[in-house]
C-alpha cells in the first residue's frame, strides 16, 4: 500500500476516538511524520485535511507552529541536542561543536547522504544526566566529546 493510503486508513482509525472536530490533528501529524521520514509532504497534508474535514491551511498552521513537526524534508535520523541552560552549564557548547564537526553540518541542516538532520531542542527533562540529546526516540545522556562519535557511528552502521 502507498504511504499516503496507510496514512488515510490510520487516520480513520484514530478518528474513531475523536471527541470533537480538530481533536486529532496533532496526533495525525505525528503519524504522518512517522510514515514520511520525519517530515510532512504536501500529499500527506492534503490527505489529512480531507480525512479530518478541515482546511489545508489549518494543517499547515499547526505543522509550522510546533517545533516537532517539519514541512521541510529531514534526514532518516533526527538528532535533537538540548540547548537549555542546565545542559549548557555542564559543557553543552563543547558537545555542540563536536557534533557539528562530526556531521559537518549546522543546526537545521541535513547531511548530504540524507542520514542525519541536526536540530536544537529546549529542555528534554532528563537534566539529571546532562548534557543530553535524542536520536529519533532514543535519549543519550552524560555526553562527552569522546562518546559522541561512537553513538553517531552506530546509526551510520544501520545504513548497510
Amino acid at each position, binding site marked *: 500500500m502507498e504511504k499516503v493510503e496507510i496514512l488515510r486508513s490510520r487516520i480513520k482509525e484514530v478518528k474513531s476516538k475523536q471527541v470533537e472536530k480538530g481533536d486529532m490533528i496533532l496526533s495525525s501529524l505525528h503519524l504522518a511524520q512517522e510514515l514520511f521520514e520525519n517530515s510532512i509532504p504536501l500529499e500527506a497534508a492534503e490527505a489529512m485535511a480531507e480525512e479530518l474535514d478541515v482546511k489545508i491551511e*489549518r494543517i499547515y498552521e499547526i505543522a509550522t507552529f510546533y517545533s516537532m513537526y517539519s514541512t521541510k524534508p529531514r534526514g532518516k535520523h533526527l538528532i535533537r541536542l538540548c540547548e537549555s541552560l542546565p545542559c549548557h552549564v555542564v559543557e553543552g557548547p563543547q558537545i555542540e561543536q563536536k557534533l557539528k564537526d562530526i556531521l559537518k553540518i549546522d543546526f537545521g541542516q541535513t547531511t548530504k547522504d540524507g542520514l542525519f538532520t541536526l536540530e536544537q531542542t529546549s529542555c528534554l*527533562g532528563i537534566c539529571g544526566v546532562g548534557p543530553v540529546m535524542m536520536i529519533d526516540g532514543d535519549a543519550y545522556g552524560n555526553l562527552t566529546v569522546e562518546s559522541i562519535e561512537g553513538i553517531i557511528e552506530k546509526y551510520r552502521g544501520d545504513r548497510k
Partner: protein
Amino acid sequence: MKSMTILFSTDSNSLLNGSRSYAQTMKDLVKEYNLSKMVDVVETGTFGFYGKGVLFQVFPEDIYYSVSSVDDLKEIFNEHVLKGRIVSKFLVEKEKIKPAKRTELKETRIVLRNAGIIDPENIEEYIARDGYKALYNVLRMKQMDVIEMIKASGLRGRGGAGFPTGLKWEMTFKAKDGKKYVLCNADEGEPGTFKDRLILEGDPHSVIEAMAIAGYSIGADTGYIYIRGEYYNSIKKVQKAINDAKEYGLLGNNIFGSDFSFDIAIRPGAGSYVVGDETALMESLEGKAGRPRLKPPYPTEHGLYGKPTLINNVETFANVPWIILNGPGAFRRYGTEKSKGTKVFSLVGNVVNRGIVELPMGCTLRELIYGFGGGVAKGRTLKMVQTGGTAGTFVKPDKLDLPIDYESIKDGISLGSGSILVIDDQNKAIDIAKKAVKFYMHESCGKCTPCREGTRDLYILLDRISKGIGKKEDIERIRTLSMEISDSSFCGLGQSINLPLVSLYDNFKDEFLELVKAKSKNTSNLI
C-alpha cells in the same frame, strides 16, 4: 513475598545509564538458575539520585549496589544472590543515597510516596499501598465536602503560578453546564525541571486517581492528560496505567458501583513551551496552534471546547489522594504559613549529585545544594543559582539560607517549577543571559508584539555586548527592555522575562560593564 527482591530504577534518567538492560540481564540470570520463585526483579521509579553507574537495591538486606558492566552484575549475582555474600566493592554507602544530612533535611515523601518503591507498571502494587482507596472514600462523600478538604489543606498549584487548588475546584464545581472537563497539564517544558516526568513514570496511578477524584468533585466525566510529545517513555507508561485502571473498573462506567463514570485519554504535545499556559494548552487540545487566550473568561467557566474546565499540574494532582487519606491537617503540618505541604525540587547543573528530592516548603538553597546535592561539582566555586526554571530568578550565594516558598519572590527567589540550577564560576553572566533570552525568543508564539519583537531585540543587544561591540548605554537597556517586555506582554511567557534578566543585571552589572569597557573581542564562550 519472595525471599529476595531486587529493585532497578528505570525512570528516564536511569534508563540513559543502561538500567533497563541490566535489569533484564538480572531477570535472565534468575530465570536461568530457576530462581524465579525465590527472587523478584522489579523495575521501579527514581531513587532520586544519579551516579555514573547503574544503581539497584537489594532486599531484605536493604543495600544499594552500583555497577558499570555486565560482569560486575554477574559477580554480584554469583556472590550475593547465590551465596548470600555481600560484595562490598560495589556497595554504595547508604549515606550517599540517603545521607544523614538528608534525614536532617526531613525529606518528606508525599508526592513521591511510591516512586522508587513500587513497580509503576503494576496496578496491584499501587493498590496494595492504599491506591484508589481515596477515590473509594470520596465517592461516598458530598462533592462540596471533598472540595472543602482540598481547600482546607492549603494546597496550591505546583506548576509555578501557585493558585489555590481548592478554590479552582470550587469555581469549576459551581459553573453550571452539563459537560465539564478535567485536564492534567503534563506539558513539562520549564528547563531544568523533570519532576512531572518522574511522577508520571514512577507513579502514574496517583495522577489518574486524583483526576478521577477531581472529576467526581466538579461533575466531569472526561479527562485528558496532555503530555509533552518528546516524553515518549512517559506516554507509554501512563497509557499502560490507564488501560489497567479501565480493566480493573477504576475508570469507566459506574466506578465502585456508584453513579459516577469517568474516562481519561492522553493527548501528546508537539513541541511548544507556551502550551504550558493553561489556555494555550486548551487551544492545542482543540487542534490549533498553541497560543494563549485572553482572560477572563477563565477556564473554570469557559475552557476546553467552551466548557467549564479544571486544569491542574501533575504534581498538584499527585498530592490529592494523600490529602484525602491523611486529612488536610496532616498536610498543613508541612511547609510555611502561606505555602503548605512539600515541593519536589529538581537539582541540576554544576552540582555533585543531580536528581530530585521532595522537601517541605520553606527549605533553603543551602539544604538543597549542599545537603542533598553534595556541593558544587569538580570542587569549583558557586557563582549563582537559578531558581524556578529559565523563567526564574538568579541569586548569588548570599541568599543560600533564605527559605523557598511561594512568598520567597520578595527576597528575589522564585519557586516556579522547583528547578534549582547550580552555576559555577566557569560560566559568564553574559553567556547565561544570552542562553536565557534565546529560549524566550525561540519559544515566543508570536501572538503579541512585545514578546515577539522585544525578545529578539534583547538577544541582538546581548549578542553585541558579548562580542565586545556593545556601548555603555546598552547595559542599562538590558534592564529597561526586559521590564518593558514584561510589562506589556500578553501571557506569562513574556511577562516573566524580567525575573531572569533583571536579577542577572542587578547581580552582575559590573561584569556586563566590563564587557563594554574591554577592547578584546573574544569575551564570550559562545560564538
